């Protein structure tokens, strides 16, 4: 089958594009003040409609018919549009600086040009600007890129205010988070309430839901590609903020002016400062201490006209500690990631990007009681090498190809413990490894002014303990421009996921374990077909409508009464099945003017089923298909921004979603046990999974940003009002037996008999105001 795919791709690769006499124009676009490269700048040759956009390094390449002079227009959101006349008879190289149109407006992200979106082959991608993220009201005033993305159609969230995302029927484990090419395995702090990404250093965040470019692989449902900013190579500057639970600071500046730069960013919560003080003043309080921090850096070097080198790093840690006179409980978890990326322009048309990255995630629980200790942990460690090539032989044809290899090391459920005298000891867990590789080729072809194709093929594989898997992953995308304003798009994506997340609870926790494909555990696979319509209503408004159908194979659930926390053979707890999802997503967006925002709506259906345990000892109660908890039928979001003046900006978000599904017991039994005084005489009987839909979720939030301009820079005071009409949304439901005292035959005997059950809904928060202060200098 793979040979057929390859032949198919190369058939199109050999399409003979009509030849013309052309000249090439290359160059780079940077910010006038900071010297940082601008990505996604739209560059249009006015005589002929030829155009391109700048890449992630601000570079662009354009071929136009030979003329005496060519007018080029450079446009970028939030920047003054600039026109440049090129008189190069032969190939020439332009350095273009753009000035921020609104000097205090921060717009640092990819192109949102409607024309660009309409003309692009890529579909099913959600992009947010840093400005949008910073203006969206958030709980406790903590800006969060992932929570902001959840407001886009097709990206429903998990529990209230958590960062988990469930894209087009995929589980929370089917999303690949890339920070400057390095994988982030646990993208959240505080049990999922905050993401690991400090918004102050974000350059761009793109979430691919379908139509996956062939250069991406490894997860079934989404790729979240996050690029951090490049430091200002002209002057030193900084920004920061003080919030209710955390503070942050970002510093950047030149190492060698105009040639190299640095950027450091850090964030830390200070909740533990208060709890430690409370515990110190009141020893009886004994409140656990918790904090998280994350630290990012990026060094960027311009090594001549053809080479760029960047070194990035991330370190994040959550620490939870609970101590008393007799024991010490410490639980920490975190990611470490780093990458070195080298970009080389071999010729104006031929570019390569080579990177080496490392990624490490671990959690560790240490519990010490007098004379005894207990430790539990798990982790994953990666080293990845990757090279991508981009070749632009003509304005109508672009080819990308590359390969990658990742060595994974897994530490599965490490348990150590025993007594200090050595008499007692116990241990469990095992270490596994695997090698994941991939190679791809992608051909973007413009047949004529109406039709574009992206024909790609990725071939990936995994090697684990002499067991090898290889799969072709076909990636096809097309764009049919019906006219200047309307494009029909379609795509097909095959994806393979070789790593599996073992979730030890119903929600994502730091104790979740990454597990490789093995001889018994087959790689998860998906196929997705999507079609879409992008219609530019006018220069300010756009509608994007997409429908999709997606099939899953070899997805994992867990057998009944699974033991996931500690096991020497975790595979015995797996059940393997399949699934399918379908849905429609609609987005109406306005990006220009004082009043901007979007309305998103998703209608979705998700089903999983046909699960069978890997081990003959296991059982899986559910026959046929069932809906997972995140099968959210309707998901609506309204996001509005209104700029009253240069100093005041209002924002509002309204979300409505069908309630999640919960697996509730349908029956109960009286269980008296053999032990006296059974504390739990009511045993719930669970039958069909996810049999109850919780009440619908809806919430209205407001935000207002006030900007001040002190002599030292800029000051932004943000006031957020979350859950404005005090809706009590369901965070979880717990069930509480009510007892009646049952008398025995003699007056001395009596026991509690469970008479009925009460269902209680717990909400996470009521109406919440929050004030945060951000600054720049």
């Amino acid at each position, binding site marked *: 089958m793979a040979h057929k795919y390859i032949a198919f791709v190369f058939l199109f690769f050999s399409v003979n594009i009509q030849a013309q006499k052309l000249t090439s124009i290359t160059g780079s676009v940077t910010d006038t003040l900071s010297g940082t490269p601008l990505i996604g700048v739209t560059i249009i040759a006015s005589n002929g409609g030829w155009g391109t956009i700048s890449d992630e390094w601000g570079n662009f390449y354009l071929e136009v018919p030979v003329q005496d002079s060519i007018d080029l227009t450079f446009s970028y959101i939030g920047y003054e549009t600039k026109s440049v006349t090129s008189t190069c008879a032969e190939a020439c190289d332009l350095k273009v600086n753009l000035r921020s149109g609104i000097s205090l407006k921060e717009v640092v992200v990819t192109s949102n040009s409607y024309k660009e979106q309409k003309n692009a082959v890529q579909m099913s991608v959600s992009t947010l600007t840093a400005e949008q993220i910073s203006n969206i009201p958030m709980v406790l005033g903590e800006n969060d890129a992932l929570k902001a993305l959840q407001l886009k159609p097709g990206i429903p969230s998990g529990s209230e205010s958590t960062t988990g995302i469930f894209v087009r029927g995929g589980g929370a484990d089917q999303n690949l988070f890339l920070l400057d090419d390095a994988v982030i395995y646990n993208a959240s702090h505080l049990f999922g309430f905050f993401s690991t990404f400090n918004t102050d250093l974000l350059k761009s965040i793109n979430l691919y839901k379908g139509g996956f470019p062939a250069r991406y692989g490894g997860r079934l449902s989404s790729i979240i590609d996050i690029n951090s900013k490049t430091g200002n190579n002209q002057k030193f500057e900084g920004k920061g903020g003080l919030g209710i639970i955390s503070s942050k600071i970002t510093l950047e500046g030149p190492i060698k002016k105009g040639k190299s730069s640095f950027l450091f960013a850090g964030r830390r919560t200070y909740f533990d400062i208060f709890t430690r003080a409370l515990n110190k003043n009141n020893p009886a309080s004994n409140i656990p201490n918790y904090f998280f921090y994350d630290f990012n850096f990026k060094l960027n070097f311009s090594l001549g006209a053809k080479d760029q080198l960047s070194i990035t790093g991330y370190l994040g840690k959550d620490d939870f500690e609970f101590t008393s*006179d007799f024991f010490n409980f410490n639980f920490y978890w975190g990611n470490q990631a780093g990458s070195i990326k080298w970009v080389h322009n071999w010729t104006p048309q031929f570019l390569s990007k080579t990177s080496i990255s490392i990624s490490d995630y671990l959690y560790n629980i240490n519990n010490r009681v007098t004379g005894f200790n207990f430790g539990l942990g798990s982790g994953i460690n990666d080293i990845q090498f990757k090279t991508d090539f981009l070749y632009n032989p003509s304005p109508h044809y672009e080819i990308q190809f590359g390969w990658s290899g990742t060595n994974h090391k897994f530490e599965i459920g490490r348990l150590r413990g025993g007594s200090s005298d050595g008499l007692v000891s116990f241990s469990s867990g095992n270490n596994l490894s695997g090698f994941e590789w991939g190679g791809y080729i992608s051909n973007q072809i413009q047949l004529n002014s109406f039709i574009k194709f992206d024909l790609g093929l990725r071939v990936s594989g995994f090697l684990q303990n002499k067991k090898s898997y290889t799969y072709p992953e076909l990636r096809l995308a097309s764009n049919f421009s019906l006219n200047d304003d309307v494009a029909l798009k379609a795509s097909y994506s095959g994806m393979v996921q070789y790593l599996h997340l073992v979730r030890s609870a119903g929600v994502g926790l730091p104790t979740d374990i990454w597990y490789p494909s093995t001889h018994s555990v087959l790689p998860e696979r998906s196929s997705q077909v999507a079609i879409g319509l992008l219609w530019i209503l006018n220069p300010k408004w756009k509608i994007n409508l997409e429908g999709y159908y997606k099939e899953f194979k070899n997805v994992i659930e867990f057998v009944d009464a699974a033991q996931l926390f500690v096991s020497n053979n975790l595979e015995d707890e797996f059940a393997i099945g399949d699934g399918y999802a379908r849905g429609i997503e609609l987005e109406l967006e306005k990006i220009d003017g004082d009043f901007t925002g979007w309305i998103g709506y998703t209608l979705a259906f998700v089903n999983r089923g046909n699960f069978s345990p890997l081990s003959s000892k296991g059982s899986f109660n559910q026959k046929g298909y069932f809906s997972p908890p995140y099968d959210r039928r309707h998901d609506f979001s309204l996001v509005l921004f209104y700029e009253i003046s240069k100093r005041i900006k209002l924002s509002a978000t309204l979300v409505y979603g069908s309630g999640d599904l919960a697996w509730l017991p349908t029956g109960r039994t009286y269980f008296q046990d053999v032990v006296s*005084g059974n504390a739990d005489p009511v045993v*719930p009987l669970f039958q069909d999974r996810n049999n109850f839909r919780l009440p619908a979720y809806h919430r209205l939030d407001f935000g207002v940003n006030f900007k001040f301009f002190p002599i030292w820079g800029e000051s932004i005071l943000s006031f957020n009002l979350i859950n404005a009409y005090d809706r009590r949304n369901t965070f*979880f439901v717990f069930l509480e037996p009510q007892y009646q005292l049952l008398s025995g035959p003699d007056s001395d005997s009596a026991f509690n008999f469970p008479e009925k059950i009460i269902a209680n809904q717990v909400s996470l928060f009521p109406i919440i105001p929050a004030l945060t202060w951000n600054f720049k200098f």
Partner: protein
Amino acid sequence: MMKHLVGFTLFLCSCLFSTSCNLEKEIDIQLPNYENEVFVECYLVPNEPFRLLITQTTPYFDNLTLDNPLFSESFLLNGAQVSLSQGLNKYELTNTIQIDPDNQKFFNYSNASLVEYNTEDSFFLDIILSDGNQITASSIFLDTVRLDSILVQFDQKDSLARILTYFKDFPNETNFYRRVLMLGNESEEPIQDFITDDLFIDSIFVFGSGYIFNPGDTVYHSIFHLTEDYHNFLESVQQAIDGSTNPFGVPSPLQSNLTGDAQGVFTCISESKNRTIIKK
């Protein structure tokens, strides 16, 4: 650990959202229709009569009040033919209510003969319900654990004590244990109750308590040697309870060891008991 995490999260919420009046409320839930099932609990305890409880399960939110005239009909399942056998010995159980007030248990089938501890022969349970359905199960007594030592240790302030119970794991086989600790009275609710296997233990088990005992306290501790199916049943019971009360819990259907159209457990109880009086 999860209790700490949940507790911390709730503490965090209560601190941050102090404007809250009440974040918890009772709600009505309409569940899918549920068909009652038969539930059997039968434990063979050495030197105690043969007895078991057969009940009907109920829809989860239905009231089961004692003043309901249908209580006996809807809860206790009567009219079954119940027998237990071991080798050539067969014991018929009669359908009569028996109450064990000391242990707060009641049974609706019993035979006054006493159970003998015998690790050689299996017991077989045979139930024929009034509608003709048959339920069967088997179990065997395992070797009881020999407690090597029980240590009482006081904390640094010499005020509170903990108890450490040591015993050797049975070699060359996978074993399952249950530890139960009770304070003051054997009929009290356990202060410690958990099950474990021996997959991670080298050879010696130690079960410890926190520093919670005062001098003079009487502590009852038991180690049950469990069959694998009984262990799995208890594990599923605990997960089912967690799944309905703990937001991080993952529900589980029960892992019954009965054959036939019923849920429940039949097992022989291999228990090692000890009583310790805390002394300085």
